[in-house]
């Protein structure tokens, strides 16, 4: 057996060296792996956000959307829209027909009201027709009977009793004295209602009425107000489902009922879905549901829409429709102003700390304070801003008391001040001392040396601080909660006219939608859209700052 002797080849790496190589490779692998992991995590977090946010801009818009765009913003082709509206109205018409016929037997108040109206009209007609007094009395009492019998039939929950009462009404149908009078309406109503009595289980009338209300709501949410109905005051009620995804939710509400049943006593109720066909089984309304299900697309005519105006439009009806224009402008304004406040202050403070202050106890205390300031929760800044800027300082300078962009920007400026100070301090400190020496040796004063040489050389580092601050300021909600934010605003133009007024911002509005009201369930696309816009906005601001920084750095390197 031959024992392997250690190699004497001088070029062959020894065992220790090989081990080191392996360890090096492992570390390199680990490092690149973890970078990849972070990038992946970022994608995993951001991609769905952006994907869902994109649905705020790119979606299947229905004819209601186009109508809204035409009426509210004057966009689109008027002639095409008119043709389209006629087409969808034709398809929708039977829906309303079916609904009306059925509801006549359910909404008894309407029928009773109608009967009372007929009676009154008939009386007036009699007066006008100059009938002999005795006949008039007879006819009047007859009409009264008709009215009461009909009301009895309508109010009855018993099928036989209702039929009997209706029979009493219809007995007079051939009375020649009533021919051509308003009273004929009684017979028409009685016949219609007779049909209802034959098909509808009158004892379940209350249940039907509730379900019918749901169906009606769903249909209104789908198609907007009925043709011929007066225009509702709320923008939200003026249009049906503007987006196909919204429409699908309403369709589901229309086509299936939600029921809570007790499966086991003492256990939480369970939700089951009942098809409306089953709920309205045996009634005239049953054909409505397959009809809507099959022809919903024709009734709404969804088309792929790229709604880029989302980024400039005002929000309508509290973000139910419209876009985030005011939010974008408000976010930009408040962020830029905050940076404008914090940057000079931060750079001057950093310059003082580096160039003038020594290393005394006071300076060390100041440094500690700055570092602590960076760790203060943002809501504390918010409350401070409310107490100091909103209530105390700004009214002293003649600004109206109350939340304003100015107050919010000042508060945010304080929030990002430590970031800017620390970045600037680091940047100023790392400027080669030879630059300063050269400038001083040329006879520049210290101030001139700082402004003309140190500051330009420190600019990339300072811009890094600005980049960090922009991201922070644009995304903060708590500091502007009390100082600047409102839930809904309109685009203030020109911007300087807006600084004394409150504004809405992307971060605050998406928070508000989430906690505020029923909107969260109705407009999830809008919430994601805002978050996406915020991400894009911060990204764009960052890219701009990074480009500026790399340009400056390039110039400083002499390229």
């Amino acid at each position, binding site marked *: 057996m031959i024992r392997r002797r250690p190699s004497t080849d001088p070029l062959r790496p020894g065992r220790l060296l090989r081990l080191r190589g392996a360890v090096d490779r492992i570390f390199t692998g680990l490092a690149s792996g973890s970078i990849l992991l972070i990038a992946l995590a970022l994608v995993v977090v951001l991609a769905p956000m952006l994907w869902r946010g994109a649905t705020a801009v790119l979606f299947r818009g229905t004819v209601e959307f186009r109508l809204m765009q035409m009426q509210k913003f004057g966009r689109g082709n008027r002639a095409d829209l008119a043709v389209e509206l006629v087409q969808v109205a034709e398809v929708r018409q039977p829906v309303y027909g079916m609904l009306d016929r059925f509801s006549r037997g359910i909404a008894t108040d309407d029928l009773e009201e109608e009967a009372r109206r007929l009676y009154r009209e008939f009386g007036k007609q009699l007066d006008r027709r100059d009938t002999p007094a005795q006949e008039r009395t007879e006819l009047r009492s007859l009409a009264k009977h008709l009215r009461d019998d009909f009301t009895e039939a309508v109010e009855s929950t018993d099928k036989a009793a209702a039929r009997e009462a209706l029979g009493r009404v219809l007995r007079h149908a051939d009375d020649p004295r009533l021919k051509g009078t308003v009273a004929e309406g009684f017979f028409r109503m009685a016949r219609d209602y007779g049909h209802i009595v034959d098909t509808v289980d009158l004892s379940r009338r209350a249940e039907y009425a509730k379900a019918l209300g749901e169906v009606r709501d769903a249909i209104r949410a789908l198609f907007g107000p009925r043709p011929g109905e007066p225009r509702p005051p709320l923008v939200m009620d003026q249009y049906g489902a503007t987006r196909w995804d919204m429409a699908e939710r309403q369709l589901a509400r229309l086509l299936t009922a939600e029921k809570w049943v007790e499966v086991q006593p003492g256990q939480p109720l369970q939700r089951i879905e009942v098809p409306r066909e089953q709920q309205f089984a045996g009634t005239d309304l049953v054909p409505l549901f397959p009809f809507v299900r099959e022809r919903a697309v024709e009734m709404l005519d969804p088309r792929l829409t790229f709604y880029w105006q989302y980024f400039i439009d005002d929000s309508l009806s509290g973000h139910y429709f419209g876009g985030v224009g005011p939010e974008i402008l408000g976010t930009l304004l408040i962020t830029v102003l905050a940076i404008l406040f914090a940057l000079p202050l931060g750079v001057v403070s950093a310059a003082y700390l580096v160039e003038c202050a020594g290393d005394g106890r006071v300076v060390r205390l100041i440094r500690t304070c700055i570092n602590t300031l960076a760790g203060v929760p943002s809501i504390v800044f918010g409350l401070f801003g409310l107490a100091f800027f909103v209530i105390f300082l700004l009214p002293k300078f003649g600004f109206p008391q109350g939340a304003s962009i100015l107050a919010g920007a000042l508060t945010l400026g304080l929030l990002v001040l430590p970031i800017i100070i620390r970045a600037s301090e680091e940047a100023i400190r790392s400027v080669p001392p030879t630059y300063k020496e*050269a400038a001083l*040796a*040329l*006879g*520049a004063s210290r101030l001139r040396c700082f402004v003309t040489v140190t500051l330009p050389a420190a600019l990339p580092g300072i811009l890094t601080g600005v980049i960090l601050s922009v991201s922070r300021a644009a995304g903060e909600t708590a500091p502007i909660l009390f100082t600047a934010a409102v839930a809904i605003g309109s685009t203030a133009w020109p911007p300087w006219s807006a600084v004394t007024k409150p504004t809405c911002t992307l971060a605050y509005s998406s928070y508000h939608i989430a906690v505020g009201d029923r909107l969260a369930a109705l407009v999830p696309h809008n919430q994601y859209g805002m978050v996406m816009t915020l991400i894009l906005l911060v990204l764009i601001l960052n890219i701009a700052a990074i480009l500026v920084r790399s340009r400056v750095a390039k110039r400083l390197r002499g390229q």
Partner: protein
Amino acid sequence: MVEPGDSPAQMPQTAEAPDKTVRARVPTLFAAAGPRPLNGEPLIRSRDFSLFYGQKVGVKQITMDIHPQSVTAIIGPSGCGKSTFLRSINRMNDLIPNVRVEGRLEVAGIDVNDRRVNLPNLRQQVGMVFQKPNPFPKSIYDNVAYGRRFQGFRHRGELDEAVERCLRAAALWDEVKDNLRKSALALSGGQQQRLCIARALATQPKVLLMDEPCSALDPIATGRIEELIADLKSAYTIVIVTHNMQQAARVSDRTAFFCLGELIEYDWTSVIFTKPSKKQTEDYVTGRFG
């Protein structure tokens, strides 16, 4: 007796360093620029000048005169205080905390350590070139125009003229005239150092202090700087600190030898390198010490 203006070859045999009794016969010193100092007076005058870094001695009791329109070299081993002395002349030592001075150091008759001295003005009169080329990260033009701008010259034509004049004086004009807007950092080391000289010239100083200006340069660039020093001698008073004794011998008229913070010997360069009066100097220049 040492007579500035005479050529070193005609030097008297006295081995004494030039002292305060020296009177020059040279009639004009600053032909064009600035107020004229007293004829023949040394421009820089140091009397028992000492400088301390806290407790540590930087230089001690330096007494020497530096004459206008000549090149004075300061040589000596590392840490002997030659740079410290140089930087005292335009008070660049102020940048170092805990510096204390004693004695008198005059430039054109004014004590530089006087509290009333306007530092920017002093430094504009006494320009400085550093060991490592340190151009600003700006364009060539802006580098040269820097000092000129804050002297109040903002007119475009005047600045252009000054930049060209200084770059010509620093023998850099022909190399950079086509791309004055290029970054100064893109130049080679030797070009950068000449740019720094041009920049220092722009404030129209009377004195140019050079702190080992060639130590970071290759021999060719060094040669060019040395030629430049020879050219500038006619208009400026140059004080150069150098490690390189050949360089001192080549470019300077007078040489001072410093050791451990003290001025050991100060004389015409030819005297220092051929017949030094002190044993220490001889050991140093012959390479037996230092």
